[in-house]
């Protein structure tokens, strides 16, 4: 397997939001032409809105959802711009960092 390794500079966007607005967030991502993401549907956490724990998600509380997106810088900016209103209304955070994606 002596191929040259080909990599691509990308932005790694992480979004953590309340599970109850996940559907809307994913719809927004579709609208922004985000072609791929990875999703951990139910994660716990702590933030301004207190502790979110999985053991009580079946009684009227919500877990958080964790979305990871690898995309180009422009898309990352678009995502951040669209997502922050949800964060301020329903809580959550959005992180952006640099990474390299292995081409295939």
């Amino acid at each position, binding site marked *: 397997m002596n191929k040259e390794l080909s990599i691509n500079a990308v932005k790694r966007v992480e979004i953590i939001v309340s599970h109850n607005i996940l559907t*809307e967030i994913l719809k927004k991502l579709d609208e922004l032409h985000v072609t791929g993401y990875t999703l951990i549907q139910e994660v716990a956490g702590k933030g301004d809105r207190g502790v979110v724990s999985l053991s009580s998600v079946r009684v*009227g509380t919500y877990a958080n959802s964790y979305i990871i997106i690898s995309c180009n810088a422009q898309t990352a900016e678009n995502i951040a711009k669209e997502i922050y*209103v*949800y964060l301020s209304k329903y809580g959550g955070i959005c992180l952006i960092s640099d990474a390299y994606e292995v081409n295939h």
Partner: protein
Amino acid sequence: MGILDNILNPVILFFAFGMLAGSLRSNLEIPPAIGKFLSLYLLLAIGFKGGTALAATGLSLVGALAILAALIMATIVPIYSFFILRKKTNPYDAAAIAATFGSISAVTFITAQQFLTSNELEYGGHMTVAMVLMEMPAIILAMVLVAMVRKQEALKKGGKVENADAPKISMSKVLHEAFTDGAFLLLMGSLTIGYITGADGAAIMKPFIKEMFMGFLAFFLLDMGLIVAKQLRESTEGLNKFMFAFSIVMPVVNATVSMGLAWIFGLSVGDALLLAVLAASASYIVVPAVVRYAIPEARAGTYFTMAIGFTFPFNIIIGIPLYYAMISYFWGL
């Protein structure tokens, strides 16, 4: 059949044990997937049982009256609750709490049915219909109240709506969220399926629906005990004495009002108890889930903790036998 007898029921003891284990910070935990399944099981069983019972008897006049009484309670409780709460808290919390207490808790209802069965008292399948119908009016009323509040506040600020690019919360979206809620739909669906398949269906499903019931309920209440203890440990910051008092006194008031209606409408003891329990109980599943989305201004730490941390255990342990004692007294047993 007093409070002590109620407590000596295994399912109630498992609830108490769960609260104890939770307060000891034990690592005892029912896996979330199991807890969710148990709650789906209970909803399916209760809906199905109600449907087959209704198929057997049809809807009698007294059944229709019981449903009417339920609808009256579902309408007036959120309204008078809102105006009481409004004096002591902000309008968003008031609306959220009113919605919570105006709606019902299916598990409290189930536990009350269990109480009746072990005391060999009858109740009608129409009470399940009553329960289903009592779930939603409170949410709709709360939404209307909040819409009015939001308009008022916008006017105060000179008509400018803050945070203009925030996602809109429309009534229709909230209604969709409420009426397609899994718990609600499953209840409706099983009720309908029970009604359609009637006695044949009841016979086929009996071992699962009836014989497993106590065991699954015991496990579920054990889990609820753990959750209640955790909730009381983690999220009582925003709560004051008034809210605690409200969570205990209001159920008794609502139960008492509903007994008046039950008496006027000539309901049986069993139906009257179930109506009282529905009126007294507060929703900690469907309503908080919807309200969290629909009234994000309200603090979940208040309405949710009140419903699950105070009202639920109160009704399960003290409320049910208390309302039963009151009804026995009034009905002259």
